[in-house]
């Protein structure tokens, strides 16, 4: 089902490959996750692959139900089973296969190597413990630090994420902080054990724009400081443009396009990306006409045959209904899952 850990004996013929991939922080390969529900099996993630290097920012972009959060949860190993099952694929952290690790060992990676920031800080923090206690918990549980020392560390971390008067506020409770400050506390918790990777799942969606800018700036500064890998999960094409190095676009649980950030915005190679860019109002454009994508994203228990986007795609041809398009390699780091990626790229594609 899953690959065995590569940290043990490596067969000679795999040496070349593993050396090449060993620089990677995280290597996700052909990940499949399904939810077995009463209404049938929902294929939340089907064949997702990507990698991450130190200091790099990867954005996973998608609408609700595209499988972007489930991918993050599968990497963290925090999916609820049942109903969710990882049925195929591998997630390697610095060469170590995580999916086959027993839970006890997996816990050593969670928080310590890979940490996560969630969207809604108010519901992610425990309302009956002070924030200092919750930040310090990381040190007490993972490192066995004493309560006093853990609180001191908590103050240091609160300073690091720029919470004013950290020493006075360390004993306050989550409800006494504003939304932006709560998100900073979440970031402090994620940072506490100096992880190599931070996964941020819609970290600024619930925040106002001015606060969003502050939090994104903070994340970028912290990343530059410690050379972490950052996976940013979002639906916001604007935020992505400001921070990401490369982007993976997901639709209905599948990858539809992967590209470096400049290429993706300049010349999308998948009709979904292209339409999405044309559908968002931009603050710096005047007299802009909004193109719409007809219809709605599919139900994951009934993903359309062939290309999942074909019922909404203006360029769909008969082949799109019959065949699932593979993820074509366009160039070194660009991929598109469209039968007509060439035509989409050079703009020669015609409406149906």
């Amino acid at each position: 089902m899953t690959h065995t850990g590569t940290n043990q004996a490596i067969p000679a013929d795999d040496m070349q490959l593993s050396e090449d991939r060993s620089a990677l922080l995280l290597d996700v390969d052909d990940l499949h996750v399904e939810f077995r529900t009463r209404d049938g099996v929902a294929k939340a993630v089907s064949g997702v692959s990507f990698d991450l290097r130190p200091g790099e920012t990867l954005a996973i972009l998608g609408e609700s139900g595209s499988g972007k959060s489930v991918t993050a949860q599968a990497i963290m190993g925090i999916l609820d089973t049942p109903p969710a099952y990882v049925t195929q694929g591998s997630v390697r952290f610095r060469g170590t296969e995580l999916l086959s690790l027993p839970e006890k060992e997996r816990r050593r990676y969670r928080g310590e190597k890979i940490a996560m920031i969630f969207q809604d800080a108010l519901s992610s923090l425990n309302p009956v413990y002070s924030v200092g206690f919750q930040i310090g918990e990381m040190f007490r549980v993972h490192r066995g630090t004493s309560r006093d020392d853990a609180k001191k560390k908590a103050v240091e971390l609160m300073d690091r994420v720029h919470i004013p008067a950290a020493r006075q506020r360390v004993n306050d409770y989550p409800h006494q902080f504003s939304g932006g400050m709560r998100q900073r506390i979440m970031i402090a918790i994620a940072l506490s054990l100096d992880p190599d990777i931070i996964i941020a799942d819609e970290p600024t969606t619930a925040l106002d724009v001015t606060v969003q800018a502050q939090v994104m700036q903070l994340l970028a500064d912290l990343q530059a400081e410690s050379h972490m890998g950052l996976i940013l999960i979002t639906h916001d094409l604007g935020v992505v443009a400001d921070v990401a190095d490369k982007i993976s676009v997901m639709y209905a649980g599948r990858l539809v396009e992967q590209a470096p950030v400049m290429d993706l915005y300049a010349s999308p190679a998948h009709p979904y990306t292209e339409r999405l860019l044309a559908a968002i109002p931009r603050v710096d454009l005047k007299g802009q006409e909004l193109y719409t994508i007809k219809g709605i994203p599919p139900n994951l228990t009934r993903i359309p045959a062939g290309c999942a986007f074909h019922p909404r795609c203006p360029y769909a041809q008969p082949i799109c209904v019959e065949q699932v398009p593979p993820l074509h390699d366009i160039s070194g780091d660009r991929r598109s899952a469209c039968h007509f990626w060439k035509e989409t790229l050079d703009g020669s594609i015609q409406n149906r």
Partner: protein
Amino acid sequence: MAASRTDEPVLEVRGLVKHFPLTKGIVFKRQIGAVQAVDGVDLLLYKGETLGLVGESGCGKSTTARLLMRLDEPTAGQILFHGEDIAQLSGKAFKAVRRNIQIVLQDPYSSLNPRMTVGDIVGEPFQIHKDVAPKGSRRKLVQELLEVVGLNPEHINRYPHQFSGGQRQRIGIARGLALRPEIIICDEPVSALDVSVQAQVINLFEKLQDELGLSYIFIAHDLSVVRHICDRVSVMYLGKVVETGDEEQIYERPTHPYTQALLSAVPVPDPTLRGRRDQIMLEGDVPSPANPPSGCRFRTRCWKAQDICAEQEPELVVRDDLDHPSACHFAAIRKVIVTHDVS
């Protein structure tokens, strides 16, 4: 965009105030203060135009919407609909006026009763305002409304859960249209929708305005959406309007520091602008509306603040050689967005 706009105001708001009392004690309640949610707001809405109301959470924009609908009673101020103060009306006269102002709410999941069919939801306004449509014709009217907002009229007997988010928002819009209002207040109508669906609903709002000559008050925190749909914009901060002007004046020649900071923080989906945008980082958070700063309410976060800002409250007036009102002692144009014309 403003094709049908005229110079006759349909709605004029003067000095609107809403203070929510803060009380202490259970049996003998004493008032110990007030949350100044809305504190002296003036608005002007012309026929056929869209007025945007923007600001961060807690700035009082949704409270203003509730006051305009009179879902809350204003503490002070006038709401003039065609010159008639609806804050003073009651009984029959109020009911007759109220028909003309409808609202579309943010969350299409919680604003539709899950036990009612779409037909009942959209037709409910007719049960309250019985004289608008005779009983026999109501079903047909509802079907027409569904068609207008782009839903299948045959789905009249379905329940809200059978629809997607975007379709539900269309149901909410159909309900708002039922009484043929002159004004629709849209309180964050697209912020709960997916990006690919959001554009459909925005375009629907624009189409309906062109066809029916509606006036919108469009409340949103997404400044890109507001720029796209609005003719004029009022920017709110802590219960007050700090700057007001037409779309071009606000977006291309903002004069209030808060407007400038707000605009500069809007992410632009264009990676080539990375690091080249004029970004103003505001320090700290919005102060509590229960205890707002003296003088200018923005001064605690403003990089221009001087002593006068704490002593004297700046009025919302046109200053010096500027072309639109701004509530700042040191109002000056700072272009934070480089605008491209694509039309």
